[in-house]
């Protein structure tokens, strides 16, 4: 890892970027400034405000036109210092708004995809435990094509956790789950938050959900 460690702050987020999508005239262009001491923050904002775009930038999938992204003391991106860690080296667990499961792999192989890359270092999440928690044991041998909306979301969440990330980005991870499942998962996410010590960004439209998980809420847009 050739990311420079900023001595100043070793937890929290220091994000100050400007994003652009589409062409200059009619496209989307917005600056984001999120500075927080907290380890787990929520990002809320209207539909189209740029929440997903922000997460993409942090994950290394969208290059900001200027600014920098520092998470937990590690500089992921800094335009001026010409730092731009490629996505696969950022070790970010990203639960996409659209699950993005691999259609050529079954559920088990989807879950294990990131595990293989992660190696044995700091294994925090184990397959059996995750499968149990998300209630997807009966799906393991299935392909992804017939999964229901909520099932896809759970597999995507499991896959992200199993890649043993150092940062978690969650883009409406529970939006398709029923209340029971949601009530089961939220405490687990709270436990992940406590025990893993991972920085997390949580995007959701539900104030109640946000309040239960995040220490700090940022509204954008």
């Amino acid at each position: 890892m050739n990311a420079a460690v900023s001595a100043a702050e070793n937890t929290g987020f220091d994000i100050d970027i400007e994003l652009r999508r589409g062409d200059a005239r009619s496209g989307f262009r917005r600056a984001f400034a999120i500075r927080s001491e907290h380890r787990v923050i929520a990002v809320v904002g209207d539909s189209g405000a740029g929440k997903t775009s922000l997460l993409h930038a942090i994950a290394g999938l969208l290059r900001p036109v200027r600014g920098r992204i520092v998470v937990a003391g590690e500089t992921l991106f800094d335009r001026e210092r010409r730092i731009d860690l490629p996505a696969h080296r950022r070790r970010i667990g990203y639960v996409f708004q659209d699950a993005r499961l691999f259609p050529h792999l079954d559920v088990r192989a989807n879950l294990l995809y990131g595990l293989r890359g992660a190696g044995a270092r700091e294994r925090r999440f184990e397959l059996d435990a995750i499968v149990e928690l998300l209630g997807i044991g009966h799906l393991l041998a299935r392909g992804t094509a017939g999964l229901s909306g909520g099932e896809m979301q759970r597999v995507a969440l499991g896959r992200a956790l199993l890649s043993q990330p150092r940062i978690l980005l969650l883009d409406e991870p529970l939006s398709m789950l029923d209340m029971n499942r949601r009530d089961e998962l939220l405490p687990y996410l709270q436990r992940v938050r406590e025990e893993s010590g991972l920085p997390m960004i949580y995007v959701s439209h539900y104030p109640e959900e946000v309040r239960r998980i995040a220490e700090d809420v940022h509204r954008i847009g």
Partner: protein
Amino acid sequence: MNEGFAGFSAAELTAIALSLKVAAAATVCSLPFGVAVGWLLARTRFPGKLLVDTLMYLPLVLPPVVTGYALLLGFSAQGPIGRVLSEHFGIVFAFRWTGAALASAIMGFPLMVRAIRLSIEAVDRRLEQAAATLGANPWRVFFGVTLPLAWPGLLAGAVLCFAKALGEFGATITFVSNIAGETQTLSSAIWGLMQTPGAESGVLRLALVAVALSFAAVFASEWLVQRQRAGTQR
């Protein structure tokens, strides 16, 4: 000439076996290049891309004899590339079955690349992004996500190349001539029979062999596609 088998003369059986060898070698050896070029054309931009794209179609656009002649100029014992290859790597194409395979591979290349490129273009890049966030480096993304998803195009490209290799004749005979047991493929044999009055029944017999071989190739590829599809729709 020895005894034949199942109504085929020994020479014909040799030609059939040779055709299989040539077609298989042409397909297998050109596949990596086909994938590489297909990926370059599908996923990158570079100056002169349109030119590369056009040049790739050359073996299709020119009469096969011209392609064969160009191969002769380049890859024969006297040709600039052929000389280097044989002196430094011991690879000889001239008048060898390897030359027939090279000619077939070149003739089938545009077909193979087109199919592979189409399939790679159809792969959802968002899945490649997801793989990257899961820690997969570009190589793993390519071999673990892009290529498996482009699988139908890969197989289609391989079958097209194999079929073309079975039927290829003009470039092959111009480049490596027609040497029994070495470069006389099924197609050359059929072509030869076409030149002889009254040999139509022989043409038909050998043509049926070519059809049977291509049937096997098509069948195998359909089976491989179905198998992958079944695997993902459980």
